[in-house]
């Protein structure tokens, strides 16, 4: 086994060159490069953490804004509903008032028209009585050759007409 057979002649060289090259690795790589690499890793981790925190804050702000917008929108909607409701109520009331007025006007005209009709009918009946009385007087004078008094004829016709 060369490790033991050559021990006496090679140990010093082995130890010397190991210390040289491991020392080189330790000072150049371990002390020189590794801290730089770790600093990069650490700064990147920090950056990522900060970015995540910023993104989280932005998300929270957006959520709050959305919430505010939502409450505002719902409030405005409620206001609009209330406005519509009052407008509807007012319109209904106005319509009712106008309907009542129109009804009243129609009733008045109806009553007037009925009164006119009644007057016309009464006038017509009077005329019929007069005509009937004259006709009755004429008929009597023609048939019987009697001269009937105009007033008597009228009374007779009235009695006949009105029972």
């Amino acid at each position: 086994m060369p490790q033991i057979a050559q021990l006496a002649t090679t140990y010093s060289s082995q130890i010397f060159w190991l210390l040289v090259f491991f020392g080189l690795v330790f000072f150049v790589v371990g002390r020189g490069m590794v801290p730089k690499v770790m600093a990069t890793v650490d700064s990147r981790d920090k950056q990522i953490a900060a970015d995540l925190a910023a993104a989280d804050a932005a998300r929270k702000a957006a959520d709050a804004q959305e919430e505010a917008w939502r409450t505002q929108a719902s409030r405005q909607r409620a206001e609009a509903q209330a406005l519509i409701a009052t407008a509807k109520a007012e319109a209904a009331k106005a319509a009712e008032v106008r309907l009542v007025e129109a009804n009243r006007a129609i009733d008045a005209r109806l009553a007037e028209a009925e009164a006119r009709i009644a007057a016309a009918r009464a006038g017509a009946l009077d005329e019929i009585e007069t005509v009937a009385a004259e006709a009755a007087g004429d008929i009597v004078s023609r048939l019987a050759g009697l001269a009937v008094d105009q007033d008597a004829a009228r009374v007779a016709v009235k009695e006949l007409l009105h029972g």
Partner: protein
Amino acid sequence: MAEGKVDPVHQFTIEPLFGTDHLALAGYNIAFTNSALWMAITALVLVVFVGGGAKQAQVPGRWQMAVESFTGFVDDLLRSNIGANGRKYLPYVFSLFMFILFANVLGLLPLALIGLHPFTPTSHFTVTGVLAIMSFSIVLIVGFAKHGFHFFSLFVPHGTPALMIPIIFPIELISFMVRPFSLGLRLFVAMMAGHVLLEVLSGFVISGTNGGALTFGIAALPSFLLMIGICALELLVAGIQAYVFALLTCVYLNDAENLH
């Protein structure tokens, strides 16, 4: 090496390269060997890999993602074992984990196909032992610097009756002192065993194929199929052993940092 025979441990032989056999520092031989070469390649690949991912882009590319997943993995390991205080050990544990991982994986690459001979430095206990002693020393230094002599209370678990302390203390102390050995040996043994197994099986494939159609059918072919599966297993072991080394370092550092 005889014809058709494969020496399964020859791959661990250390050979000086570039004529540096007698290079010495303060009387100690420091020849630049194949082991040192592969440690250098590991370090170079690691620098290129992590350097390519250290672009510091806020939106990472694929390469940067790969590097960041490794640093994040080690960082999670430290955080889950030590807590928020674990960050300061990241450079060391990351270097340790990546160095072992890259050394393990580079040693498994089939680079022999293009004439290179991969060598796994982590299959030598001289290498894993130094890494283990380094981790253990850091634990000791941190422990004593942070808690002083109070660090010895680590060897007396909570709720130990006073009568039991003389027995528990040595047991805990021994289990603590064994840590660097178990840490280093575990990695060395796992790496070496896998490589030896692959080499032995490849020896079966070579001699079975040379032995004719019958031995090819009963020995070489099954061994070859087994090698494919074991290669996948070895890739897994390469990752797991690096992870275990880093994990245990974290667990030991937690003892020193938080003391129970």
